[in-house]
């Protein structure tokens, strides 16, 4: 007995020692939150427009053959009527417990339960179980398919989109889903004002302005959205300009279709600013009403749990879990121990350092990588960086291959350009920057910058899906840069404690950041990085910044998918050979982990997993 106790204690001490370091590095809400992505992708291969429906488009003949009708921004096509909607559960084994509760750890509290105002993953995770959109991403992919729409078609110019609304679907308050309800939702989103407009961040990021919104100069803020009209079973959405992002945008959880009756009854738009935060109406805190497989039951703030129950009237395959509980456990080590103790059956974004041990004791679900980490340059303060040779020298100086192999989880790849391979327009035919310190020194000498000093910033107190351990990244690359003679002034700051502010204020010359894709369009990556006039790289301070911005906008506005992809290929080549606003480092697959007796969850590149059809086996 005493021997056994001693051994347990020893094991315990060893384990506690192992977690000591992690204890202080709190897994912040931010660390998980912004992986929220939910995206959709233009598959581009769902069959030519002509095959799948009323083409009304020269697409097939104009090189768009093979462009995805189901995909976003493939104008003039029709999406195949999707099996869409709810995923049919995989073969349900005999020992599956269909009355089970699936408890998943959340890293933080949700903001509320109205996805329109959601900005983080902890808000979107429960929302995805209760709400559905017109379209969604196919399980396990970033490809688009219909969901509450049975199918959809677009006009040749890509400005008018007709969504045939699925019949027989009701909201959880018993009211029917129809084209009027869909248009009510889109008009509601577009009509946000005041605090609601500030909080509806995924509208402003993707659609642009709100109805009647003016900027500080009094100019109207342009919006992609124009109108939505109910026409029988169809909701006809008109947009102001063609963008490759539409209709992929509609797969984001913020664009979920909610019950108009409940929205009105519980004053869903009544968001108010209060001090440095926002307050939400009863709809968002206690009465979220969607069409999804789960219903909201309770948010027990005193116990830190959110409980959803099976929607027995769900239009698709019923949930295979009776109850879904999100238990708030902010500390990552505590989440891991809760899984080991059996208190929870899953959690998101386990530390890659734990992957091997988790593979033995649980099911580790590795997602396809859909993110990018980069070393950004800021052109404003250090004029040396305006010389292309200096920027290329930095790229040659970084041993990205070794870093990815030794520091990132399995499946990670060196990034050759500014978005992952699976996104349209990616090409291997860009200028390559293999590790070559001699070439780096030579370029620095040619630029007359042998005594170059750079301000290098890196973040602490954070992990991101694309950057599991910022210190490792900094350590590797600072050594590489110093090895070619570049002197570094190093600044490290907490992510929410000055790092992001510093980058936005353009204090660093070099900084580490990244992005998890929302849907499969190049614009979601490079448009987000470089299109704003005050972007982090200060590209508008360079002679080529405006041209670069225009090239991004031009590519996004080409309705013909093949031509658009070609434009992005050309742009990617130019970015990597002429612009080099930074060095893309890697795409890294994040993971989630569930208990051994849990199956049926398909890891999504967009963190868009469906827990409602998880299979929990007894015994």
């Amino acid at each position, binding site marked *: 007995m005493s021997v056994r106790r001693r051994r347990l204690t020893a094991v315990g001490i060893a384990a506690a020692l192992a977690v000591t370091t992690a204890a202080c590095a709190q897994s912040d809400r931010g660390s998980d939150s912004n992986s929220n992505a939910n995206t959709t992708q233009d598959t581009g291969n769902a069959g030519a427009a002509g095959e799948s429906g009323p083409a009304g488009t020269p697409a097939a003949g104009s090189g768009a053959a093979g462009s995805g009708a189901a995909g976003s921004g493939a104008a003039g096509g029709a999406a195949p009527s999707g099996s869409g909607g709810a995923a049919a559960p995989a073969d349900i084994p005999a020992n599956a417990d269909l009355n089970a509760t699936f408890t998943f750890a959340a890293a933080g509290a949700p903001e509320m339960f109205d996805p329109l105002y959601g*900005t983080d993953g902890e808000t979107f995770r429960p929302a995805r179980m209760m709400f559905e959109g017109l379209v969604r991403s196919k399980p396990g992919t970033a490809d688009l398919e219909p969901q509450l729409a049975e199918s959809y078609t677009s006009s040749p110019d890509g400005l008018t989109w007709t969504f045939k609304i699925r019949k027989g679907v009701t909201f959880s308050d018993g009211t029917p889903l129809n084209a009027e309800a869909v248009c009510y939702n889109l008009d509601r989103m577009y009509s946000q004002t005041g605090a609601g407009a500030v909080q509806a*961040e995924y509208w402003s990021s993707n659609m642009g302005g709100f109805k009647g919104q003016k900027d500080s100069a009094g100019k109207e803020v342009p919006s992609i959205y124009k109108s939505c009209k109910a026409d029988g079973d169809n909701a006809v959405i008109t947009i102001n300009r063609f963008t490759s992002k539409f209709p992929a945008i509609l797969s984001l959880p913020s664009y979920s279709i909610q019950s108009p009756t409940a929205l009105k009854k519980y004053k869903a738009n009544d968001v108010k600013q209060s001090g440095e935060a926002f307050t939400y109406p009863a709809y968002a805190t206690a009465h979220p009403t969607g069409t999804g497989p789960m219903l909201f039951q309770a948010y027990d703030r005193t*116990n830190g749990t959110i409980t959803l129950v099976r929607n027995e009237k769900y239009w698709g395959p019923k949930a295979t879990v009776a109850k879904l509980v999100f238990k708030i456990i902010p500390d990552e080590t505590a989440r891991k121990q809760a899984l080991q103790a059996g208190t929870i059956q899953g959690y998101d974004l386990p530390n890659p350092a734990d992957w091997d041990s988790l593979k033995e004791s649980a099911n580790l679900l590795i997602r396809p990588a859909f993110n990018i980490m980069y070393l950004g340059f800021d052109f404003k303060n250090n004029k040396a960086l305006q010389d292309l040779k200096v920027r290329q020298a930095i790229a040659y100086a970084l041993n990205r291959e070794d870093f990815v192999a030794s520091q990132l989880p399995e499946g990670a790849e060196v990034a050759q350009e500014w978005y992952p391979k699976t996104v349209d327009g990616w090409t291997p035919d860009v200028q390559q920057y293999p590790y070559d310190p001699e070439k780096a020194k030579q370029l620095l000498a040619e630029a007359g910058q042998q005594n170059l000093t750079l301000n290098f910033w890196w973040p602490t107190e954070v992990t991101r899906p694309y950057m599991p351990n910022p210190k490792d990244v900094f350590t590797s690359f600072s050594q590489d840069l110093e090895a070619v003679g570049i002197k570094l002034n190093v600044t490290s700051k907490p992510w929410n404690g000055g790092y992001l502010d510093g980058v936005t204020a353009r204090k660093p010359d070099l900084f580490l950041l990244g992005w998890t894709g929302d849907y499969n369009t190049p614009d979601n990556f490079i448009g987000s990085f470089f299109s704003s006039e005050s972007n982090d790289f200060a590209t508008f301070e360079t002679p080529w910044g405006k041209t670069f911005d225009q090239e991004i906008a031009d590519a996004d506005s080409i309705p013909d998918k093949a031509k658009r992809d070609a434009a992005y290929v050309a742009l990617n080549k130019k970015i990597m050979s002429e612009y080099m606003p930074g060095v893309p480092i890697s795409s890294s697959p994040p993971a989630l982990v569930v208990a051994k007796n849990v199956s049926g969850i398909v890891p999504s590149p967009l963190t868009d997993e469906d827990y409602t059809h998880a299979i929990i086996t007894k015994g």
Partner: protein
Amino acid sequence: MLRYIVRRLAQLVVVLLILSLLLFFWLRLLPGGPDSAICGERCTPEQRTALRSAMGLDQPIWTQYLKYLGRIVQGDFGTSGFVEPGVPALEVFWHRLPATIELTIAALIFALVLAIPLGYFAARRKGSLLDSTGVVVSLLGVAVPVFFLAYLLKFVFAVKLHWLPDSGRQGDINATRVTGFFVLDGLITREWDAAWDALKHLILPAIALGFIPFAVIFRITRGSVIDVQNEDYVRTAESKGLTTSVIRRRHILRNAMLPVVTVTGLQVGALLAGAVLTETVFAYPGLGQATQIAFQNRDYAMLQILVLASAVTYMLVNLVVDLSYALIDPRIRTR
């Protein structure tokens, strides 16, 4: 006595006003802000500007302070942005307070019930096995960091042995909420399973949190009893032929308790600090966990209320300790 209490409470108000001013400016001078925490890397600079403007963070800091004071006068302590987004900070404070009080009481009970008797008997049998063991354990208690002990206890008793829960205040159980004190609620509503479940959730965090106070109180009790039992008045009492129990109760324990009460009061303050780590490790949704989340995400409204509340607690506990001297030591009462 009453005048003394009123004077002390008046001091408390002044201290709070000064503290609120310092706190307001200190928080806003910290790098980062709630807009960074909300935006992460995803906001465009324009969105960030709009957010800062909507939150009033673009206004001069004195304007912000005056607005803040104006809201406080109306009883509005702001809204939590992260701990429980969208909920008034005061409401978050009140519904998390029972959790932390419940945990603190459990930790104090653990510390006092063990430390005072053990400290007393260790002193009475100085040099015995009990004494030596007690001294070593108490040394460990003050040397081992709270979070280390918390992870260790959890690993052994929750993860490996599955004897006790690892996190939270209650499992997936139908429980009626009445006071917010889960154990008490279970007893009031006669939901025995809920009360038992809540109690099981308290055991490990209470031990982790109460271990330092246990160690400190044990050492003070032991030292104090050793000092007191060698005092002349104890020898006089013995020579008068008083019974051992009378000597223990009236002459040793009572006199030895003065420093113990002082230290216990100070330890209540230490418990609040320890609760930040303990509640984080055990995912226990109390004020300690709220403090950690609020600081990390610059939840100004919550931080303001949490720091002010802990200042009030410290000062009230000190007041109670001072008053308790009068109860224990009649010489102070007469002064």
